[in-house]
């Protein structure tokens, strides 16, 4: 299977991003409805994740999912821009759900970077959709102030023993692995003394309880860790290096992943534009102002993608992308809500349900991945050289 895929895609190794896109679109078009989700509205969490898994297998087996990833982790190599293009072409067509699609790009790169040996084993099944990962950072008392997290890991023989609680962990109830931040040193607080672990969700002592979001979706969970054993070999990076691992993940979560989200937003904006009566001046203003924000995000994001491809992304830079996307996301679905004039509040159609869920999810855009206030603090501190706040 792998041989077939490489042979199939070999001419693309030196392809420009546009050549890659053209080849990919040809493949997508040739598959036709085979790639379409079978659920017809927003879909349940299980439905959309299952569909994504099936699609990922197809994409992996035909090579597309492997472009831009190093060969050591089952990739084919080539520009990391190819990964962003794949996401964009899928979300723009509504073949995957943008939020769920971001997981590989948020969590994968840090494991490749900090744990190359482990990555050779765990990344290929993740790319193929066989295994899903989740991100165990936030806790009941550690939200914006991630450095105040309290989950601990004690060393015992060749294992670590994790105790504590995580909160808001997206799709943990459908995940096979979790990247968990825990305190490993006594007597140090804040960002020091934290280690990142690659934890099997099937380990004894992990209890996962799904929570319903305001959109009535089981999107995130609370997780309880009661003496969960994790072998030494599952430390990501070095002991005490967890903060650096977290920063790497957050830099991905706040910038590079938004190329595909931009495509997702434009897809929805196009749908609203199609449903707008010509001459509706209010709708024109709403659509255009949302569109302008998405295009500004895309223009900015393109520069970010190029920095990523060249290996120069600075964490603070992606905070700008995060603030831009959060506002654009909300503007798009606010425009939809206002243009539809009551559909989101009053109707029970599939479209109303889908846009209602998207509108509600967009409220979290200024929260997940670090709130917009926290991003502004980062920008002020690291990009504007302002004196530190008190």
């Amino acid at each position, binding site marked *: 299977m792998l041989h077939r895929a490489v042979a199939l895609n070999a001419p693309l190794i030196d392809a420009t*991003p*546009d050549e890659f*896109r053209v080849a990919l679109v040809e493949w997508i078009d040739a598959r036709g409805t085979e790639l379409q989700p079978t659920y017809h509205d927003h879909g349940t969490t299980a439905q959309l994740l299952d569909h994504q898994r099936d699609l990922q297998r197809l994409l992996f087996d035909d090579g597309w999912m492997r472009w831009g990833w190093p060969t050591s982790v089952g990739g084919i190599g080539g520009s990391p*821009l190819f990964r*962003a*293009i794949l996401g*964009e072409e899928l979300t*723009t067509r509504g073949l995957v759900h943008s939020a769920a699609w971001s997981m590989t790009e948020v969590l994968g790169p840090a494991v490749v970077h900090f744990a190359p040996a482990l990555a050779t084993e765990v990344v290929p099944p993740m790319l193929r959709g066989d295994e899903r990962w989740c991100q165990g950072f936030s806790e009941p008392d550690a939200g914006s102030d991630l450095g105040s997290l309290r989950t601990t890991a004690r060393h015992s023989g060749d294992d670590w023993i994790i105790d504590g609680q995580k909160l808001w962990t997206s799709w943990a109830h459908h995940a096979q692995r979790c990247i968990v931040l825990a305190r490993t040193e006594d007597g140090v607080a804040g960002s020091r003394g934290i280690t990142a672990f690659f934890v099997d969700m099937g380990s004894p002592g992990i209890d996962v309880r799904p929570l319903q979001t305001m959109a009535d979706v089981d999107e995130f969970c609370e997780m309880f860790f009661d003496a969960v054993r994790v072998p030494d070999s599952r430390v990501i990076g070095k002991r005490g290096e967890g903060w650096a691992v977290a920063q790497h993940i957050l830099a991905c979560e706040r910038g590079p992943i938004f*190329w595909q989200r*931009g*495509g997702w937003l*434009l*897809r929805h*904006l*196009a749908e609203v*534009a*199609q449903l*707008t*009566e*010509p001459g*509706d*001046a209010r*709708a*024109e*203003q*709403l*659509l*255009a*102002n949302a*569109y*302008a*924000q*998405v*295009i*500004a*995000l*895309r*223009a*900015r994001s*393109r*520069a970010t*993608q190029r920095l990523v491809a060249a290996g120069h992304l600075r964490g603070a830079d992606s905070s*700008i992308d995060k*603030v*831009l996307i959060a506002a654009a996301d909300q503007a798009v679905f606010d425009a939809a809500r206002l243009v539809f004039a009551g559909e989101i509040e009053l109707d029970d159609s599939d479209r109303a349900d889908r846009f209602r869920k998207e509108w509600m999810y967009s409220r979290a855009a200024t929260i997940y991945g670090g709130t917009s*206030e926290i*991003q*502004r*603090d980062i*920008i*002020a501190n690291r*990009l*504007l*050289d*302002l*004196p*530190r*706040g*008190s």
Partner: protein
Amino acid sequence: MDAEELELLQRTITRLVGSADGSSLTAGLDDLGWLDLLATEPSAGVPAVFAAQGRAGTWSSALHDVLGAATADFSIAAPPDSTSVIVPLPRSATPGHADGVDVRIEGLLVGARSGAEWLVAASVDCDGKISALRVPVRAVTSERRQGFDPAVDIQRVSWNGRDAATIAEGEVARSWWTATVALARRALTHQLCGTLETMFELARLHAVDRQQFGRPIGSFQAVRHKLAESKVALAGAAATADIAWEVDDEPLASATAKLVASRACALVVAHTQQILAGVGFTADHPYHRAMKRALLIDRLFGDAYDLATVVGRELVARGDAPRLVAL
């Protein structure tokens, strides 16, 4: 032009644009080969000149030249040294309006080169058809306007009559005007971004230097977040201005770029003025000149409201939200 040449060009232009203003800047740009650059490599020359003018707060005849640039592409007989293209009034898509054979032209000349003998105006008739009209300068009523920013030479021009020469019509005229407006919007977007950057930097430095309650005001989160938001808006506007040169769909990309910059303008003006507070309100401080310049540029070829109308109509007409930017 490779990256090194471009950087050298930008440096040379920045130095010139920061050291001269008005007609002496125009003369300096001419010596530098600006008109040639505009004709052959607008995507290098226009951003460099206009962004530098924005940052330095200077004004040359570059906008006049940009407005004339497309005439040659459409073989419209309007040599830039003897012709000025009229800027439409705010809220108007064209300076000319035709009602049967009667034509009314109302518009602006903004930093035009002296010595022009002819004025060219895009004109729209009752069916929405565009034509390019030419009238002799001596037949036009012209009045100097001081307005918000007297440093810029602005003439309010008007003409009524039946005997304007039609120098282009049909598809040629429409394409010429679309291209002219798109180029002007891109140029002005760079200038607006440059102007906003200067305002931002004045406010940022003030936040570092100014002490109250025993600490720099830049340590107060209310101030820090205003600056961070401004930075985000500027980064988005600058990136959009850049991509507008690479996109095939230039009219939509240019209108969107200026819309993004105009939105940033409203935010940056509000935030920077507030941070500079009393000192920024004085005539001695350089802030107000940049701020007035920003609002003048914002007004030309569509402010945020007008451009949102343009862009929104386009999205509805197409039933699409084009991606514009590719990786």
